[in-house]
């Protein structure tokens, strides 16, 4: 967008004989042209790299990457809500839980596990995944009488209630959620292809659940990111930003504020639902403890670190916050100050919490645009 700006700004001054004075517009184009193609090549190289990862990385990093991609989808969702529309939500973990457990209940068969009678609908898993996302959206819609009316801190703390309601239901509705022990996640299958641990050898590389799911997650992330970009760049995105910047002025200019706010809440819940389904598939078991307040705080940390209101920011922040503990765990032997859990020193989990807690503070104070906007808009990108 910003590269195109000088061209359009100069065109009126060029006047009717635009062909006679090609220099200013032309120089602009020769600058942006190669740059743009370099960007395209970078994107292409990045995508090819991402597609090739399952052939080269070991399972630990694939798992880490899967978590990061699932988290990225959730972070894009909360960034639409908190970053672009300015609605503070601390209840994101609740919608992740709705997605994860919704998938388990819809796809799972009725069975007995750890003494719990588990009920399930036994739907085809791909249908269950879609319905789970819609279910999360419906849960967001149910909350919209509150989400559409409250602002700022009031909304933040009201959504805190969702976490506690969610935890209560997860621990108590044993026949649906399996209670404290959670329930097993049925593997996804699509057109007769099942994304589980049975080995399929592709180009001499044994493919198990992580490798197969990698492509599902990649496709889901690409779709989510492009959809969110479309929303943000179009009419709805401008309306959402207007609501964030000045709610009343937005209303005066004809933006249906309450409807947009309820709508973005539903959309963000659906993103969380999709992230929840993916997380469940990666974990292969959902436990209620995971979907607590800490998870919600992590998602807020992600979008602040990456950059509020941008899709790329959400992805970068999600990668930062989810990969940090994994990296620290993996290299805990060779890092100073960090040691393996149980040896008395700083555990990787704690170290990463210090780091991203401090990163949130540091980013807001020193890099108000987040990591993705390290360079000022006026500078060459």
């Amino acid at each position, binding site marked *: 967008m910003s590269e195109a700006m000088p061209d359009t700004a100069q065109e009126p001054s060029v006047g009717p004989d635009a062909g006679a004075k090609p220099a200013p517009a032309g120089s602009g184009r020769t600058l942006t042209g190669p740059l743009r193609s370099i960007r395209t090549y970078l994107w292409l190289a990045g995508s090819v790299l991402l597609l090739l990862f399952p052939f080269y990385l070991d399972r630990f990093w694939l798992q880490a990457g899967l978590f990061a991609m699932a988290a990225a989808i959730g972070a894009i969702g909360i960034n639409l809500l908190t970053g672009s529309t300015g609605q503070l939500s601390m209840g994101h973990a609740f919608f992740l839980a709705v997605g994860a457990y919704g998938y388990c209940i819809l796809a799972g068969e009725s069975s007995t596990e750890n003494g719990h009678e588990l009920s399930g609908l036994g739907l085809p898993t791909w249908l269950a995944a879609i319905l789970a996302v819609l279910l999360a959206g419906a849960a967001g819609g149910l909350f919209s009488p509150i989400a559409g009316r409250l602002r700022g801190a009031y909304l933040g703390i009201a959504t805190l209630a969702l976490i506690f309601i969610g935890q209560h239901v997860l621990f108590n509705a044993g026949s649906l959620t399996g209670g404290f022990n959670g329930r097993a996640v049925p593997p996804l299958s699509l057109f007769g292809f099942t994304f589980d641990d049975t080995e399929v050898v592709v180009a001499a590389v044994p493919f198990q659940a992580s490798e197969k799911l990698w492509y599902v997650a990649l496709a889901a992330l690409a779709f989510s990111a492009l959809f969110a970009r479309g929303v943000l760049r179009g009419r709805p995105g401008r309306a959402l930003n207007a609501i964030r910047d000045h709610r009343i002025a937005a209303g005066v200019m004809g933006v249906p504020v309450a409807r947009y706010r309820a709508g973005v809440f539903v959309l963000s819940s659906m993103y969380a639902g999709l992230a929840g389904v993916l997380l469940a598939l990666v974990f292969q078991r959902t436990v209620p403890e995971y979907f607590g307040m800490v998870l919600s705080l992590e998602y807020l940390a992600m979008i602040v670190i990456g950059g509020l209101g941008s899709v790329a920011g959400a992805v970068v922040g999600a990668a930062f916050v989810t990969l940090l503990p994994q990296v620290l765990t993996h290299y805990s032997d060779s890092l100073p100050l960090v040691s393996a859990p149980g040896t008395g020193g700083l555990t990787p989990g704690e170290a990463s919490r210090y780091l991203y807690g401090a990163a*949130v503070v540091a980013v807001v104070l020193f890099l108000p645009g987040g990591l993705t906007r390290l360079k000022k808009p006026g500078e060459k990108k």
Partner: protein
Amino acid sequence: MTTFIELLLGGLSIGSVYALIALGFVVIFKATEVVNFAHASLLLAGGYVTAVLHDDIGFWPALGVGIAGAAVVGSAVEFCVMRRYRGSDHSVLAIVTIGVDIVITTELVRRMGTEVLSLGDPWGDDVVTVGGVTLAETRIAAFVAAALLITVFLLAFRYTSWGVSMRAAAENPQTAALMGIRLGRVSLSAWAVAGALAAVAALFLTVFPTPGLERATSFAALKAFPAAILGGLDSTTGALVGGLVVGVTESLATGYQSDLSFLGRGIGDLAPYLVMVAVLLIRPAGLFGTKELARV
């Protein structure tokens, strides 16, 4: 009936403790318009200092140091972080306090480990029985202390020059600054007061019948959020009423748990949030909060 009175009194007592926490929360919001999600960690810090020191220097000095410590942590957060923010978006600052909370809580939880620390209070598990109604001494002490502190605070808020400058800054920061009120000091003192109140609350959240200071204490402290919100974020009266409502609701829901078994176990912890959601549906600015008026 006896059970009901016992539960009601217990609820009022724990509610007054929530009111203490909520009051600090509201003071910070009034003075700086920042929602302080790090409040639970201030409370944990105060409690931890008291718990560590009480064996060596006795309970009362330890409590004093704990209160001072929490006040120092609070003002350090204001001085090192809040004051450095140059933007104007207060919801971003709210997320910053979440970052601060993550750091402080991680540190304290790491130090505490899985231990349950005692704060060494002099009341122990003694109970008082009056006319068939049994009440723990700690609950009476909590109510008396909270009532005393809240009275002192409200009087100071009304009559001292500190209170006047605080209220002026809340009313209109620009005008207050032009009148010679130093906004930096106002917000620094707000954070210090909030920390001190939270440290006192930490004591009463961890005494009998609760086991002691542990990780879960910060979740108990979180109940001050619904208290502050349902009363109205910018109202000190609201914080008091909200605290009492949350305390009584929680106490009754826990006490009559067996009659409410269809709602599942642990409904007492959830009840305050449900009440808050119900209140917000009817009054989006809380019971005593100022309704939003804006000039466009």
